[in-house]
């Protein structure tokens, strides 16, 4: 191996970077994976669920080797008002049948494993290295700069996360726009497995995933909860612009959410072991930069703003893996760097990443309906309260009682307008 030149340098040992480097190393490419943290995953704050198909796409049965947490068999949606909660719970122990649908994951563990897999395939992994910039020659990216040193490669793959410095340095896109991202905080709360099993109605290997709305004080956003082995990942993501307008601090909103009686009961007795905040690509297809490559340079994963949030499903990790794979396939198949960009875009199409993103392209329009984050969850809880109240008095007729609950939170005109907006966004 030449000391100062690689076939490819991948910057960032998250899922996109490791998927790319793994595939390249497996194909015999001389690849260097550079990670800023002291170990892969040490900088990661990501929530916690991986849709398994993506690992399967990378290599059949790879998911069986991966250190995954619990197979998600319960999907839960929680609508919160001040003290109450209406929860929809879908249970399916066979979800995904042959290849399980999804697992909760702890990224510090998963990413470290993945980087070790890259090494096992013959890739070089260098952690604790901060990349400062790119080397550009004759309009091509030909390497990276780090700590005053140059390291050259035929192609540099930017897998450096949502705030991609390299993408900006390459001139492909500007700094992140506040409307295009959510601010997320996540806490990992240790809790004995027997309590997790009992509180979420799952067995030792199974887990629940939960999303909640109505906990962000009307600000566009929501909360998530995943059960791991011996811990729960609990977090909240919301729109930073709206929060700033309301002068609300994320930690206060998160604390109020944790103190909600329905949430507190789930985490009681637990110990908080980790707390972090991060940006999340939030507006899906429309947030993806027009240009994800230039000669000698490809952008993958969060750096490319790949992400899908339907309100019920939050995806990022699977898309990261698929995009890393797409980049690797493009690099392997390209006779020279000139064709790589176009081949990468073609691979994104072929691996259906683009189709997935496009299917939800207007979805974030739903999140502009402010009542979804306040009025409607309250409405649901008031309706529940009315229907389940027995106090011996003359009951209010059902329709009248329900209408009363509805009218408290929205007029029919508003509901029709919201419904129309939702319909158009879907």
């Amino acid at each position, binding site marked *: 191996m030449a000391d100062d030149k690689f076939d490819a340098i991948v910057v960032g040992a998250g899922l996109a970077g490791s998927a790319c480097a793994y595939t390249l190393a497996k194909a015999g490419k001389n690849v*260097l994976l*550079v990670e800023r943290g002291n170990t892969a995953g040490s900088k990661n704050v990501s929530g916690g669920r991986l849709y398994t198909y993506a690992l399967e796409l990378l290599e059949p049965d790879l998911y069986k080797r991966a250190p995954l947490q619990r197979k998600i068999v319960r999907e839960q949606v929680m609508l919160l008002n001040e003290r109450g909660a209406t929860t929809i719970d879908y249970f399916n122990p066979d979800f995904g049948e042959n290849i399980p649908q999804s697992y909760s994951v702890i990224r510090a563990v998963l990413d470290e494993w993945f980087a070790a897999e890259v090494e096992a395939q013959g890739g*070089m992994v260098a952690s*604790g290295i901060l990349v400062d910039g790119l080397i550009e020659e004759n309009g091509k990216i030909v390497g990276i700069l*780090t700590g005053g040193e140059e390291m050259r490669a035929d192609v540099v793959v930017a897998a450096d996360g949502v705030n991609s410095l390299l993408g900006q340095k390459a001139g492909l896109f500007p700094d992140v726009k506040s409307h295009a991202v959510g601010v997320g905080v996540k806490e990992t709360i240790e809790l004995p497995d027997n309590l997790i099993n009992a509180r979420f109605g799952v067995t030792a290997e199974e887990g629940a995933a939960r999303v909640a709305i109505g906990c962000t004080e009307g600000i566009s956003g929501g909360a998530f909860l995943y059960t791991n082995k011996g811990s729960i990942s609990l977090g909240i993501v919301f729109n930073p612009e709206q929060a700033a307008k309301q002068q609300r601090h994320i930690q206060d909103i998160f604390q109020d959410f944790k103190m909600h009686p329905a949430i507190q009961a789930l985490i009681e007795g637990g110990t908080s072991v980790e707390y972090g905040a991060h940006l999340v690509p939030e507006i899906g297809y429309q947030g993806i930069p027009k240009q994800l490559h230039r000669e000698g340079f490809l952008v993958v994963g969060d750096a490319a703003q790949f992400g899908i949030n339907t309100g019920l499903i939050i995806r990022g990790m699977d898309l990261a893996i698929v995009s890393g794979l797409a980049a690797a396939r493009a690099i392997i198949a390209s006779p020279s760097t000139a064709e790589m960009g176009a081949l990468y875009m073609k691979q994104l199409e072929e691996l259906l990443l683009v189709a997935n993103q496009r299917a939800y392209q207007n979805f974030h329009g739903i999140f502009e309906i402010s009542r979804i984050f306040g009025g409607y969850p309250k409405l649901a809880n008031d309706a529940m309260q009315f229907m389940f109240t027995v106090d011996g008095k003359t009951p209010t007729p059902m329709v009248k009682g329900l209408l009363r609950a509805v009218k408290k939170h929205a007029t029919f005109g508003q509901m029709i307008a919201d419904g129309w907006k939702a319909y158009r966004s879907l």
Partner: protein
Amino acid sequence: MPKCLVCYKWTLDEQDIKIKPEDLSLDSSRAKGKISDFDRNAVEEAALIVEKEGGAVEVLSYGTAAVKLSLKDVLSRGAEKAHWIADPSAENADAAVTANVLAAAIRKLGPYDLILCGEGSSDLFNQQTAPRLAALLGLPCLSFVQKLTVEGSTVTATRKLEDCQETATVSGPVVISVLSEINKPRIPTLKQVLGAAKKPNEEIKIADLGLKPEDLQPKALRQSVKGFVMQRRNVVYKESSAAENVAKLTASLASEGLC
């Protein structure tokens, strides 16, 4: 041009060790390894000396099988070759056993002009390995060194003592233990990290060191390890006069045998 050997220990990162509240036992299941903090200073100091004076830096470690995980890291910090002894005996080794093993290995590998150690390990912090090594090897020992100058075969060290500094000069082979303030360990660059993978490392089997069974028998046996949690009494004296409060406080302290 000094030939340097740095002895280092691969310890668990104490930041990752948790104390279980129920029985104060330690949970190190998620703890990652690291080069013991002061040993990192020792490696750095040797690298600085060699950058200035020429010569070579080798490193030596004795530990459990986990010691292999340290090689890439230590070799990216300026050492040219790593020698390592992986043996289960390291699990319960005290400073005497550690010094016995290291001294035997040094007799095999040496001689060296400078043998550097950290002041104490991040986990046990006995501060004994360097002086014991010197005694076993019949070399002078300069401990608690905060400044080191090497010129030819003359080693000048500033030692930090309780209430003063001492400057000592030694000619010829010496064992040195360094303090953290002696330098700021480098953050390895990409080329140093990549270069580390190509540097040689060599396992030394403990059986080849000619040690007697008693050499590997710790004299200090660890009975238990428990986390330390400060427990407060949370007593507040709220009498109206300060004198009464003081009287109650002293009575309370006396009953605990504290005054």
